[in-house]
């Protein structure tokens, strides 16, 4: 955790301490969350990323209070909120289905939380107006929630959850029901809202692109465990485990052998016999055979005069407009993809079926734990 970026000083908004969640009992028992610990800092846009069933929504529901942990503590600014019912937690949720109250108007929906907190009418009115302005919905204040579009419902759901000024805002895949263009818009909108309100956001998604573009930090989850926590950069460039590398972006996996180690970096020997430097996950010092990952855009096709690290046959050339993918079959039989950016008049494309060498950047390779 936080392997490559020093822990910035600052308070933790949420600390999940060894939380475990088991549903059902006996034979039908399902472990939704293995013992999980994670800290989320104040004012952070924190994302829980993983495929469906990885436990990310369970963790969110435990923080919201809709479920209670089987074991462990959930600290909100140092206070254990795990045993509290949801209506006693200064935490609000934006639901995947929005869950707007159909029998109330847009303004009534937004004011509901404040009303339940017993705020005076004048304050509720002012705050609702402020929220409507924040999400740019002033004109639709008196509409029924069934009379507005999906994107507008999304904004109302956000405004409703933000109105009581929660300490932490939880977002459960809030963009998944929107079409592509609207989703892009809302991503920017969410970032804007987060920086304007200064509220800590915990965002759940299975969309790696969404996670990379919006988050300050990401926790990648799989089968009830948190595999890696880090900035989008960390997660993308320095995946610690195969699952993380595979789940986020395209990756080349290569077999290699560790031949030397210094200061958290290793020298690995590739199947071609060439030795290249590679980064190691924090606190991990392997010996012998390992798997390394190299992102397609961190490798290049070798020119005639270069000394290639690897070589193989170009099996396929895929032109994608901005860049071109070269699918190679290495001499040891593994597949390898090189992505090269296109430029106009950018010279000779390597032809399909020809042999080509691959250059690997000095900081491109990363050793995996498994």
């Amino acid at each position: 955790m936080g392997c490559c970026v020093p822990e910035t000083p600052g308070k933790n908004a949420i600390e999940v301490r060894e939380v475990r969640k088991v549903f059902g009992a006996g034979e039908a028992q399902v472990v939704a969350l293995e013992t999980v610990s994670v800290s989320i800092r104040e004012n952070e846009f924190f994302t829980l990323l993983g495929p469906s069933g990885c436990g990310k929504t369970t963790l969110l529901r435990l923080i919201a209070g809709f479920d209670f942990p089987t074991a462990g503590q959930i600290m909100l600014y140092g206070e254990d909120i795990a045993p509290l019912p949801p209506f006693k937690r200064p935490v609000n949720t934006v639901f995947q289905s929005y869950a707007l109250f159909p029998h109330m108007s847009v303004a009534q929906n937004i004011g509901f939380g404040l009303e339940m907190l017993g705020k005076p009418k004048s304050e509720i009115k002012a705050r609702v107006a402020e929220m409507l302005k924040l999400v740019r919905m002033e004109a639709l204040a008196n509409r029924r929630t069934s009379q507005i579009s999906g994107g507008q419902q999304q904004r109302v759901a956000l405004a409703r959850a933000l109105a009581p000024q929660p300490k932490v805002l939880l977002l459960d895949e809030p963009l998944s029901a929107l079409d592509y263009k609207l989703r892009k818009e809302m991503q920017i909108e969410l970032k804007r809202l987060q920086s304007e309100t200064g509220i800590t956001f915990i965002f759940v998604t299975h969309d790696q692109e969404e996670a990379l573009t919006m988050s300050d930090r990401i926790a990648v989850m799989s089968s009830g465990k948190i595999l890696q926590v880090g900035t989008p950069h960390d997660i993308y460039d320095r995946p610690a485990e195969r699952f993380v590398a595979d789940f986020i972006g395209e990756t080349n996996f290569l077999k290699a052998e560790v031949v030397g180690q210094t200061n958290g970096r290793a020298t690995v020997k590739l199947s071609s016999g060439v030795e290249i430097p590679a980064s190691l996950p924090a606190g991990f010092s392997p010996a012998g055979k390992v798997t390394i990952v190299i992102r397609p855009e961190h490798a290049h096709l070798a020119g005639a005069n270069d000394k290639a690290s690897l070589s193989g046959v170009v099996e396929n050339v895929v032109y994608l407009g901005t860049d071109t993918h070269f699918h190679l079959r290495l001499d040891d039989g593994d597949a390898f993809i090189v992505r090269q950016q296109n430029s106009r008049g950018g010279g000779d494309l390597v032809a399909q079926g020809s042999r080509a060498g691959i250059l690997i950047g000095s900081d491109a390779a990363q050793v995996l734990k498994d």
Partner: protein
Amino acid sequence: MASAEETARAADRKDIRERWLLSAPALAIIFVAAIGPLFVMLAYSFMMKGDYGDVKPWTFSLDGWTSVLFQRDIFDDTLGLADAHLTILWRSIRLSFYTTLLTLIFGFPTAYFISTRAPTTREIWVFLVTIPFWTNLLIRTFAMQQVIRNEGLVNTALIWLGVIERPLQIMNTDVAILLGMVYVYLPLMVLPLYASMEKLDFRLVEAGYDLYASRWQVLRRIIFPLVKPGVIAGSILVFIPSLGAYVIPRVLGGGKNMMLGNLIELQFGSGRNWPLGAAISITLMVLVMIALLFYVRNVSKSETGHG
């Protein structure tokens, strides 16, 4: 074009004709068996009563209607309010109202319980609720009598436990009628309530809790408004038959604690006053129609409310 339009219109006409033909038997039954007798009742209520029951045909009289609310003093022949009828009318409305209220209070948690079970077990619970319908109303009412009579289950148990020394007089009171009606009509409240609760999106309940609403506030502000159509439907389904109940007050209320149904039966039976019986019947029907109008107005309001 014109000919095509004409054939289309001819086909439409044929369609309509056939629809009428097909629905004719049903319409005939509705008219002969339901609407026809109503007109007979209406006519009877405006005729003079016969000496041995029946009516004197084609002799107009308002006696039937005046004696719904008024009675003639036997000595000086002045009109006074018919206290007995008013008492019965008031008892009917009051007991029906309490029955509706109590079935709502008992039925709401029951329906909520069923609708929060797993889908497969829900069906079993609904099935259990409908079991009483398998038995004849009269038998169920007599069973109730066995529970509440002086030597019945409740009194025997209470005496055995030493809570009371002498049996509580429940039989032949309004309380007995109320107990019987709540017992018999409870499923009619539970089923429509369950039908609307089953459709309730429980994520809205979670959203309510998330927005600082306590359990009571979630019930009052979110669940109740959303299942209101079910509450109204259940209330109507219980209130209307309660108002016209006959068997339950007859068996549990004894001869003294009559409701409108018993009063009507009395007029057509030993009372030998058919015009009065007919007039009370129509009064009852009007009361039911008022209740139904209230229902229709509320439902349409809450439906437009939902957009």
